[in-house]
């Protein structure tokens, strides 16, 4: 069964990353943590953007909401993990509530509406100084650990978030909800005619796609010890997941993870040479992807291998 194989792949990947601190330096651990964060964001976006076919730009909203919730609760004396969980839960509830209002929009209209969410939350976070510290940002308690242990701890934390997002994707794929979302993506009217409660399915998908970015935002806030509105509500946090999923393969299970790795490589290799131009480079990547690799690199590789295999036979 491919299902069993995919679970094995997930466990293997998690095990390899979890063992990283035994062999790697702090810089590599930092890269690993960013990779896990990207993977979690991409896997989450894939639920609403890939499975359901709704191009969401709300990832930054969920990420920032999770980050601020976790930071505020920790400042109020909560331990890190419960504060993190609260951030994920709040992001999910927020998505469910807002989803009811914007998920009847389709295509571009939905994309624009979802883009506005992060902007609204960013304004709120800037204005509500008594709660969020406003533009001054919020400081978080620094854990009393030596540097390498700290790097390892946050890698494992972010890895946990990514692993949960991966497990959720695998469970979703084989579920009735996953089936319903695939049908909505292909033909929402027909899905409705067959008795799929499309509103409920889309709202659930949107909420699932918000929980893990919420958790990742909380983990990010705890990791960097400091957050401010432009940082955690950054529009790039909404754009990158989409690029990663397009890179890896829309609607697949491991495509988003592969895409996360590729984007990170791009960033490490190219970004520093194009520091001021990186948004433009991202734009070029999107255009190239849509034009030449509409189904992602995973699919292109599979087709290439398939063709070669058949040619040899």
């Amino acid at each position: 069964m491919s299902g069993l194989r995919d679970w094995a792949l997930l466990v293997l990947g998690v095990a390899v990353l979890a063992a990283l601190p035994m062999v790697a330096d702090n810089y590599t651990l930092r890269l690993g943590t960013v990779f896990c964060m990207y993977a979690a964001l991409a896997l989450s976006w894939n639920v609403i953007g890939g499975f359901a076919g709704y191009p969401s730009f709300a990832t930054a909203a969920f990420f920032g909401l999770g980050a601020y919730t976790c930071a505020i609760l920790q400042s109020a004396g909560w331990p890190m993990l419960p504060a993190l969980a609260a951030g994920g839960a709040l992001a999910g509830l927020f998505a469910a509530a807002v989803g009811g209002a914007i998920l009847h929009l389709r295509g571009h209209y939905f994309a624009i509406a979802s883009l506005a969410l992060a902007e609204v939350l960013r304004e709120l976070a800037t204005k509500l100084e008594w709660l969020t510290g406003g533009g001054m940002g919020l400081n978080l308690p620094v854990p009393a650990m030596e540097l390498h242990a700290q790097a390892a701890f946050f890698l494992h934390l972010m890895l946990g978030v990514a692993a949960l997002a991966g497990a959720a994707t695998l469970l979703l794929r084989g579920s009735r909800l996953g089936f319903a979302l695939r049908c909505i993506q292909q033909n929402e009217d027909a899905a409705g005619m067959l008795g799929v409660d499309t509103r409920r399915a889309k709202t659930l998908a949107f909420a699932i796609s918000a929980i893990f970015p919420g958790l990742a935002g909380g983990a990010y806030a705890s990791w960097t010890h400091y957050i401010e509105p432009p940082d955690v509500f950054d529009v790039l946090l909404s754009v990158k997941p989409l690029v990663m999923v397009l890179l890896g393969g829309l609607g697949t299970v491991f495509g988003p993870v592969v895409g996360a790795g590729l984007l990170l490589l791009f960033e490490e290799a190219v970004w520093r040479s194009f520091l001021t131009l990186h948004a433009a480079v991202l734009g070029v990547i999107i255009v190239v992807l849509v034009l030449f690799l509409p189904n992602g690199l995973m699919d292109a590789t599979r087709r290439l291998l398939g063709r070669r295999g058949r040619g040899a036979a």
Partner: protein
Amino acid sequence: MSDAALEVEELHAGYGDVAVLRGVSLSVAAGAITCIIGSNGAGKTTLLRAVSGLVSARAGRVRAAGQDLTNAGPEAMVRAGVVHVPEGRRLFAAMSVRDNLLMGAYLRRDQAAIRRDLERVYETFPRLAERRHQDASTLSGGEQQMCAIGRGIMADPRVLMIDELSLGLAPAAVDLLMDALRAINAAGVAILLVEQDVMAALDVAHAGYILDRGSVVGAGSSAALAADPMIREAYLGAVQA
């Protein structure tokens, strides 16, 4: 008629400021094939969409399975056994034929019954059995219509509403589909057929309604409708020559 599988009373519906249905009443007899005839823009498709809950009714009633289901929504209609096969088929293009058919049974839980109905669909449409693992997008027009009807049957309907069965299909494919409708009907499913090919519709149906600008302007057995000089002139004019 007391043994109606589906009853529509004085139904009004439309889009925005435009009223499309202006008080449509009709009844689909259990176990019969009923057709709706009318020119373009008469409101045939809107009627089906209003019955299945895709367009909300502004006034009037829709009753099926002994319940008032006016504006109850598509899910409730499917649960009550009223299943809509939409115009233009609307298949899930990137899914296999088999998955498309299984999707029809989305609300059902009895796996054994679902498997039995899947075999029944394959018996009715052997072409679908041959192509069960192909993507729906690779099917010909006639095969797509078979798949759409098969998907409807998988919902275990009491009433199957089919919009524009023959649209864009070759005559041979239409004949095949009409035979299939008779077989489905003989198995106890009432059918409400919207069809622009008036000859074919009156040929397969037991009764019919004439819809014109959102109102029913004529009704009767299909034999009576086919013999009515006014209808012959308005809708069958071309075949008199």
